[in-house]
């Protein structure tokens, strides 16, 4: 329990650090200059940005949060948001990510098992080629290839397509990790002993090998969850989903600095929650992890 608390404190420190760092980075932006030719925003708009960020006010870095919790609109144009809208958009992106996670896990376990089966056969080359293609393909490419069917013809559900698209790379990444762990476990003595005692390979895999592979899978889930949420940015953009990723990209493109500050911190908070959840799962699933930390 103490270890979980330590981990919680360590992770939670990240949130105010991100909030303060992103605030001061945004506050330092030269949103207007003396020269008219290089002016990016009008003086009125620059003053509005400054009010939005609370620049020059005592404890100004708390201003975006005060506005958010008071239900005021953040931002200086139609792209601005209230706290409720932000939560709604975030829940949309997290929902897509939550659909994508089991898809990625299923693909990872399936790919790992296939790769183990292909290991010495004529299909062994696929074990290398498939990850190479997945690793070399940015999320927006499969999304673009699906886009005509989804956006133009309305044949498929955009959220489901986004989840499928963003699950490909993390699934393959997890699959290679699990495949490597599976190969290591299958070469151990206890597997040979179990097989020589007459257990069928499926039972050996299910009852003896897979429980030893789960920790490797769980170790990689946090970075994979990060990749899923970040990948949803590109998929939302292509499929026109009005969720958190779309909001974030538009906020950056339109220099909605207060929205960027709040969104970046919100995203960091989500990642902390994911990381802690995985840590808890890891301790529940792996007795060795509990013993090592006791």
């Amino acid at each position, binding site marked *: 329990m103490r270890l979980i608390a330590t981990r919680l404190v360590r992770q939670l420190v990240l949130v105010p650090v991100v909030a303060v760092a992103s605030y001061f980075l945004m506050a330092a932006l030269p949103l207007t200059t003396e020269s008219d030719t290089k002016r990016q925003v009008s003086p009125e708009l620059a003053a509005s940005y400054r009010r939005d960020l609370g620049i020059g006010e005592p404890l100004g870095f708390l201003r975006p949060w005060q506005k958010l919790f008071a239900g005021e609109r953040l931002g200086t144009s139609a792209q601005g948001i209230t706290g409720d809208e932000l939560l709604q958009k975030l829940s949309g992106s997290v929902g897509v990510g939550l659909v994508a996670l089991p898809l990625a896990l299923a693909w990872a376990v399936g790919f790992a098992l296939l790769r183990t089966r292909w290991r010495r056969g004529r299909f062994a080359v696929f074990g290398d080629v498939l990850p190479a293609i997945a690793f*070399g*393909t940015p999320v927006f490419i499969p999304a673009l290839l699906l886009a005509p069917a989804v956006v133009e013809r309305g044949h498929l559900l955009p959220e489901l397509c986004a989840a499928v698209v963003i699950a490909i790379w993390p699934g393959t990444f997890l699959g290679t990790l699990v495949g490597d762990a599976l190969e290591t476990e299958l070469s151990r003595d206890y597997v040979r002993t179990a097989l020589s005692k007459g257990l069928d390979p499926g039972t050996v895999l299910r009852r003896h090998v897979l429980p030893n592979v789960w920790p490797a899978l769980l170790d990689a889930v946090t970075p994979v969850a*990060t*990749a899923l949420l970040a990948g949803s*940015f590109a998929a939302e*953009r292509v499929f026109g989903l009005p969720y958190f990723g779309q909001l974030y*990209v538009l906020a950056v493109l339109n220099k909605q600095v207060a929205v960027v500050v709040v969104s970046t911190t919100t995203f960091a908070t989500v990642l902390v929650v994911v990381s802690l959840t995985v840590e808890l799962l890891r301790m529940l699933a792996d007795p060795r992890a509990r013993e090592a930390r006791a």
Partner: protein
Amino acid sequence: MNRVPVRAWVGLVLMVGLGGLSLVAGRLFPETLSNTCPLGWDLNRPDRSVCELAFGGLWVSLAVGLAAGALSTVLGLAVAALARLSGGVTEQVLLRAVDAVFALPDVLVVMVLQLAGQSLLDAGMTRGLGPFGLMVTSLALVGWAGPARMFRDRLATLEGQEYVAAARALGGGGVHVLRVHLWPMLRPFVLAVFLSRLPNAILTESTVSFFGIARMEPMSLGRYLGTSYAALIYEGGGRVVIPAWGLLVLLVLGASLASQALGGGRRREV
């Protein structure tokens, strides 16, 4: 004598060959590339052929990846060396900072850094750093944490060996041990880590360019894809997008093969 694995050679030849060919064709003989392109003209830019744009963007993506990969590897190595040399509380603080940066998604942070960098660029405050330099700096600023963690762990493992203990017992200082005894053992690993950063940097740059946030000039593969994807809604529009995608896959495949082979089967990090 250690032999370089065949997979590493295949990867390196693929990467260097594609980059070199793209640089020569895109910069030295662009007319040949545009006149002989079997894929026709780009729909959004009727004066440029698909080959010219896709092949021309390849060396830009590769150059960004190489520069950002090198910079983030050097930064990571410096942080790891500092952590090991300092030890104690300083090492723990540095490791927590590494964990914090590593936990943030690359694409999101690069978008914020690009926003900041471009505002400075527009205000003429970047002191000669153009879009290329901005992109390389942004990618390096988010990409150093992974290498730092790996180098620190590797250094800790290497330091546990008897010859290092003997060197210390004979009065060797931290910097001396690092430079004379650890660096030769660390060198191949540094190369593998550098190559593993390459695909990551290329894909992050592509994604940020695709969002229209980065302003890479000349156009990288990612920016080309990001500005041409609308072609897919037209019949036969795949001829515009698929070649650039194919080149991107080949480039990342080359870097991944070389990195995995040199790093003893390590996989690309997320």
